[in-house]
């Protein structure tokens, strides 16, 4: 207790110097809180886009389709267990695996439209509109019109509609290759526009009823993929294991089930980036810690005679070390606490208003990465607590060296002003 008092009193001996050290820690903790919030917000937002639009929690395709996916090969479709049809397979899956909440069967296919002398290339998605209405995100993103219901009705990405110079109620002719590679053309009625926020989705995708897609592509009761949704995206590995077991049990080795986190290289990069970022956070804190260590080293040097006196009066080396260590810990705690308050306020503000990054989203969209143009920074209690302890702990560890150095001063040398 006495040591605490000494350490606390010492902090107030040079308030300017202490304030600078505290400010350094506050600054880096604010940076860490903001960065963590940004990364978490960004990944959650992007992951959500990937899960809802591309992969579900686990995506089932045929092995061959998975290998050749960039070519969108319709001849490697899911034709069901023992070729009994995709719809029957989906029903069986739902009955036999309890964790499955719902399944979105889809066909993705390439299409294009001739516009003046140019060609607009895009991706068509045939999907179960009833299932989408209950579980999917398409209805949430509808900005005009309604969802397609039957026949040649389509929902068009908002940017794609602009490129095609078409709106709701108008008709548009697209060309596509069917499952037998025949070039075909069909005129569709635009009944709705979708704005997901992702430049890639809004510029390149249109949606139509699954039945229509199956008819026009010669894919009766076939789909190219099944997006399977369980109870929790974080438990996708468990769901995948159950699906693998189910597929093996039914002799469906030609199919593959892949979790959302393993399905796309960009998602994998995001995950790896998260791990790397932890190292970056520690480095940030270390940057601030340099100021504290430097301050403490300066204090030790200034108080050499005082340390000698403390030793001569019988204070143990360990206590001397603890006094200086506690000074550093106080700086770390106060700085981290202030950082948490300030960083928390900033992230809370941006978690409500969002951070607009249209230009960045546009650039990443060009690489087929799904990203929303507004990041809502994640404001979480966990972020504040982790950042606080990270700040306090790293500073405390870093202060061990100057504190140890002080404790090793010999009283006689110290009293004579001789450094070690």
């Amino acid at each position, binding site marked *: 207790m006495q040591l605490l008092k000494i350490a606390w009193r010492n902090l107030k001996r040079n308030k300017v110097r202490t304030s600078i050290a505290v400010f350094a820690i506050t600054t880096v903790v604010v940076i860490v809180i903001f960065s963590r919030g940004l990364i978490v917000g960004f990944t959650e937002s992007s992951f959500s886009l990937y899960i809802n639009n591309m992969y579900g929690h686990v995506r089932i395709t045929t092995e061959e389709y998975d290998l050749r996916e960039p070519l969108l090969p319709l*001849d490697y479709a899911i034709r069901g267990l023992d070729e009994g049809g995709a719809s029957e397979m989906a029903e069986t899956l739902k009955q036999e695996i309890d964790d499955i909440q719902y399944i979105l069967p889809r066909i993705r296919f390439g299409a*294009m439209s*001739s516009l003046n*002398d*140019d*060609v607009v290339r895009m991706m068509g998605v045939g999907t179960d509109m009833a299932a989408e209405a209950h579980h999917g995100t398409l209805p949430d993103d509808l900005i005009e019109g309604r969802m397609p219901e039957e026949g040649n009705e389509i929902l068009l990405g908002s940017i794609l509609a602009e490129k095609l110079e078409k709106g709701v109620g108008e*008709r548009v*002719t697209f*060309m596509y*290759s*069917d499952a*037998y*590679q*025949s*070039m*075909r*053309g*069909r*005129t569709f009625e635009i009944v709705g526009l979708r704005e997901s926020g992702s430049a890639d989705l809004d510029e390149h995708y249109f949606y139509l009823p699954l039945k229509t897609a199956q008819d*026009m592509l*010669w894919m009766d009761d076939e789909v190219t993929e099944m997006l399977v949704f369980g109870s929790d995206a974080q438990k996708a590995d468990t769901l995948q294991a159950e699906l693998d077991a189910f597929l093996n049990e039914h002799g469906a080795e030609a199919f593959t089930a892949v979790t959302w986190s393993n399905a796309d290289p960009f998602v994998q990069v995001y995950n790896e980036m998260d791990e790397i970022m932890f190292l970056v956070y520690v480095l940030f804190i270390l940057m601030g810690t340099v100021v504290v260590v430097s301050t403490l080293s300066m204090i030790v040097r200034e108080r050499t005679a005082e340390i000698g006196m403390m030793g001569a009066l019988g204070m143990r080396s360990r206590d001397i070390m603890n006094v200086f260590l506690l000074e550093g810990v106080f700086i770390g705690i106060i700085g981290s606490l202030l950082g948490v308050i300030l960083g928390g306020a900033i992230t809370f503000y941006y978690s409500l208003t969002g951070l607009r990054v249209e230009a960045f989203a546009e650039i990443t969209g060009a690489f087929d990465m799904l990203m929303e143009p507004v990041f809502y920074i994640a404001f979480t209690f966990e972020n504040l607590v982790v950042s606080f302890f990270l700040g306090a702990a790293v500073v405390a560890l870093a202060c061990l060296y100057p504190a140890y150095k002080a404790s090793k001063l010999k009283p006689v040398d110290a009293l004579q002003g001789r450094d070690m």
Partner: protein
Amino acid sequence: MNTRIRMSVKTLLLCIGFSAAASLGVFSQDLTGGEIMQKVDDNQFIASARIESEMIILDRGREIRKEMITYVESDGDDTNALAEFVNPRDRGTKYLLLGDEMWMYFPDAEDLVRISDHMLRDSMMGSDFSYQDVLESEQLTELYDFEQVGMETVDGREAYVVEASASEGKEPAYRYRTFWIDAERFVILREEMYARGGRLLKVMKTERVEEIKEGRWMPLEMVMEDKLREGSETRYKITSIELDYDIPEGTLTLEALQ
């Protein structure tokens, strides 16, 4: 512009025909590459014809068969052709060639679609032929400089070997081509297409040649392999051909296509 139709590829929409008998029986190593290709053009020129044909696409072990009826007419300057697919899956799909423009009609579409420049390298109906293969086939003498580089035997036939390289200022689909031309019949027996860097892109082989008019030989079956498409080849077979066919007025027009 010399728009006489060369049998090899144009036969898709095709093809083709012949006018008067070409100069046959000439067998000389003195002919230049350009002269040889001109004789090929002359030999394969068609004034008008009705052609029934089929296209068999082999793709990674899967066979897709398409049948079509083609009407073609040429006045020596402009060539027009209409190909209508008649196999069940593609029934009603039509391609119309009007000079150097190509249009498509689909039964489920309200609009005609013009093949734009951006689509030229796309596969035509999933085959190993591209739209550009069809459109460029009649412009070879304008797009390339030819050189006869020797004689070889192809399937037991003496053949001129003619190398073609893109003429200055021209940007055809393939930078280089090599032709093996039957030295007696002036029919292309084999053709190889190369990219600028020398990579082999496509190979076309003629598998059946018949004399369909006295002194006039035509390739009636050929196989195209796109070397960039693994395990793929397209066999084109003419099953019936009526030369000097009286095509009804207005058949080869956009109005009729619609």
